[in-house]
């Protein structure tokens, strides 16, 4: 199969970007979207042109490194799927696919499709950890956690920090990411000691990084490759209000 890719090209952080359209041939439907871009880059290199730069690492949907806005949807049209796991069979032969970087003030474009997501690292540094001494791995029966609570914490912990929530949000809000991180700790006993301080600090950092305000569109949940629910955002708000009112 073959497709036309209308892809965002931008020399560097400060340069003005533009779209370029390329025809990519010799594709098979089993190829991943990133393998299609690899094929495009081989074609560009053969012609002596600069390849399209994009991020990827594990290519099995667990690292959160890849992330493109494909035809207006973060990670493309398939739900609960990362860009690397998206297959070319999800597109029609001969179609034109628009590929853009995640666009947000908090995620500046570095080059082509590569964005700087270190704002997420700074949010995690502000509180996405447990710093109290919880000792070595305790016996499983020493800290009893009900099954349903453990499952909910795991659902939140499934966040791979890819930033698709920010990319998909009409307001470029990072609430789903931060909500998932805060929820994960707030549900588990190890997270209790720093529970409220954590919520306040992480949200202050999120706001300072230039992410927008959540307007409850829930588009983030639809875009999330790990199906993280906006229930995490509701919980984040409760945690923040409790934490901030305690500190007044």
């Amino acid at each position, binding site marked *: 199969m073959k497709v036309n890719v*209308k892809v965002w090209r931008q020399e560097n952080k400060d340069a003005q*970007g533009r*779209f370029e359209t390329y025809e990519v041939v010799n594709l098979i439907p089993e190829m991943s979207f990133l393998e299609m871009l690899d094929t495009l880059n081989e074609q560009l290199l053969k012609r002596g042109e600069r390849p399209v730069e994009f991020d990827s690492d594990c290519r099995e949907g667990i690292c959160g490194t890849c992330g493109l*806005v494909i*035809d*207006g*949807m*973060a990670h493309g*049209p398939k*739900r609960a799927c990362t860009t690397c796991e998206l297959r070319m069979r999800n597109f029609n032969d001969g179609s034109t696919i*628009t590929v*853009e970087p995640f*666009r*947000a*003030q*908090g995620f500046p*474009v570095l080059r082509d499709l590569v964005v700087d997501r270190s704002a997420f690292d700074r949010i995690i540094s502000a509180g996405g950890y447990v710093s109290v001494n919880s000792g070595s791995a305790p016996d499983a029966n020493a800290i009893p956690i009900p099954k349903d609570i453990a499952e909910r914490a795991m659902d939140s912990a499934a966040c791979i920090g890819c930033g698709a929530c920010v990319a*998909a949000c*009409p*307001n*470029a*809000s990072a*609430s789903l990411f931060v909500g998932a991180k805060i929820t994960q700790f707030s549900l588990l006993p190890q997270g209790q000691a720093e529970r409220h301080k954590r919520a*306040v600090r992480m*949200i*202050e950092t*999120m*706001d300072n990084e*230039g*992410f*927008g*305000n*959540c*307007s*409850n*569109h*829930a*588009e983030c*949940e*639809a*875009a999330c490759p790990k199906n993280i*629910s*906006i*229930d995490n*955002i*509701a*919980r*984040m*708000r*409760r945690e*923040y*209000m409790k934490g*901030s*009112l305690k*500190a*007044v």
Partner: protein
Amino acid sequence: MSVISIWNSTIGKKVVMAITGIGLMLFLVVHLAGNLLLFVPDEGQAFNQYGAALKSMGPFLYVIRGGLLAFFLFHIFAAIQVYTSKKRARSGRYAVETSKGGPSKMTVASKSMIVTGAVLLIFVPLHIYMFGMNKGAPPPMVMIDGNEIKDIYSMVATSFNQLGIVVFYVATMLFLGFHLRHGFWSALQSLGAMSPRWTPAIYTAGFVFAFLLAGGFVVLPVYFYFFIDAPVASAGGAL
């Protein structure tokens, strides 16, 4: 932490939006309930008495009005800040924007809150000028049980017999419906009241609430236009 820094946070702002929004929704429910007295077939006696009862609340009425005004102002102020923060956060626009469907609640209603809100902001002062102040003219009076009270019923009947006013009201109330469709459930989500078990029910309740409330306000002018004649020679008539 100071109260100011809570207000400045994205979450604090949404909490203010939610609390003021819920307050304004409660006001709308009371307002519509009162307006339903217009349907009582007694030539407006019940509605006029309701108006007189509100008036007799004296200073307490001004406390309520002041509270409502404060709620409006905080709601508008927070809305403008949310809107400008959104514009800052997404400086570069996407060439293509598509909803991924599924659990997404991104609709025309959710994306046009600032527009529907602005329409309501224009509507409210006009509405108060028309019915609260009778366009600056002395209001018509009526005698009920030996007391002379304002004949607000005939003001409503006069206004809602003019096609332009009816169309304007119906159109604005449709905007209100869209505003409430997202506003109702969004307020509860902003207060952190949602859980996976309740979200679908509350989201549906938001639609029902918006439909009933906007529907109620739409039916009134239409009913008057088609079924109630404008009062003849009401003293100092509404128009």
